[in-house]
């Protein structure tokens, strides 16, 4: 479970696209280096990975038993 490692958690399971993406990028803009954002969604957010890569973030994905996907994100170390 990655929730305890995150400074901000976004539950995107009941949100319509692109809301989970919008909220995640806003949260990433707001955090300090060293802090982490966790997104919980119903399916693997492929377009988000590409945005994270382009914007200099690292991430780690875990698939949960209930079928949801947890993506933990943070600023890449310089």
């Amino acid at each position: 479970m990655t929730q305890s490692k995150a400074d901000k958690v976004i539950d995107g399971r009941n949100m319509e696209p692109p809301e989970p993406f919008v909220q995640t990028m806003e949260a990433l803009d707001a955090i300090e280096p060293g802090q982490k954002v966790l997104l919980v969604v119903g399916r693997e957010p492929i377009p988000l990975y590409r945005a994270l890569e382009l914007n200099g973030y690292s991430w780690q994905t875990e698939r949960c038993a209930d079928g949801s996907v947890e993506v933990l994100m943070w600023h890449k170390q310089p």
Partner: protein
Amino acid sequence: MQALLSYDQSPPIAAPFRFFLTAPVFGILAGLLLLWSGPDTFASRWTPAALALTHLITAGFMLQVMLGAMVQVLPVVAGANLAGPMRLARFVHASITLGTLFLVGAFLSFSPPLFNMAAILFGVGVAMFVGSAAYALHGIPSTSPTISGLKFALVGLSVTVGLGVLLSLSLGWSLNLPLIELADIHLGWGFVAWGTILLAAVGFVVVPMFQLTPAYPEWFGRHFSVMALAVVSMWSLAEFSGLSLFSLLLGVAVVLVAALFAGITLNIQRQSKRARFDATQHYWRVAMLSALAACAVWLAARSIPMVAEWQGWPLLCGVFLLFGGFMSVIIGMLYKIVPFLIWLHLQNLGNRLVMAPNMKKIIIERDMDRQMLAHFSALALLLLTVFWPAWFVYPAGLALILANGWLLRNLLSAMSVYRAHQQKIAAVIAAQSNQTDS
């Protein structure tokens, strides 16, 4: 928010939009045709006006949006990049638009050269599309029901249009072919092997994503496309070989496969987490109920002699399927896909400087709801026209013009949001580069 959502796999926005914006124009032409041809249109499914009306909707409205959506979906969902998407979109769009106009003219005038022109334009345009899509999909593994569904749908499209071209040429050259049997097989492939398989392939992704429903059952996703293609193929062979009992049983199987998709979609939609249904959900629900009604009418005509003898049943079935089923579900999807694509493109054009507008402001909810009411009114009037053509054909034609005019207006207003925002982005970027220069 300062982020780039990569869309390097997405084709230019004009590629799908030229198809999307043309579809309602054919819907308006369908309404005008009803006003021009009057109650006689509904004398049987074989009247010139009924054939022209059917193809204004299938080739003019449905095919436009379906190919436009595929131009977008192939690269983004399947990772199948079309070579030169803009050039391909321009060519295919021009071919099928002119092809539809020639075909409608051919049905209304019964002029052989027009049938031949329509056959050439559809044949070349769709062959170019299928060839490019097959080349792009070549080597891409079918890792999801959507990818395999897209591949099977292309087979369905090829056979549907191949049979259509054959029928058109046989009318153009007065060839001695079994036209009625071929026409039935043509529409079986069009509605099930092309239309329903493509709808399911896209629905597996967009229904849970935009309507907040559970996913389609895994067994269904894995087997639906192959099952649909198999039963349609077997039914076609039985129909063509004159094996009437097999043909009847397999025909029932084809109808039940389509009904299964509608039933499962209604069931997962019932479990949506959204408190209040939006226009897209209403459109999907009416579409699936209409599809079930069309299946029920077809089954009744096959089992109840009184229904079978009634000349109106194929028209009733057709109105449910075309206006209630496919048109409804397509408009419902346009209301999600169009704002989403505009948002996606503006998000990227903004280049970290200008935020994309809120997706809900790209097409206003009230405008979608009102257009939806106009479409449902047109559907109700068309259903009444089947029973009382003299009374309802003119109100139905007017309602169809209103509903499609409104759809066109809603899509154009989305495009104007796009253009206005694009100019704003250009101004901000120009101002910034001026600052940097000085």
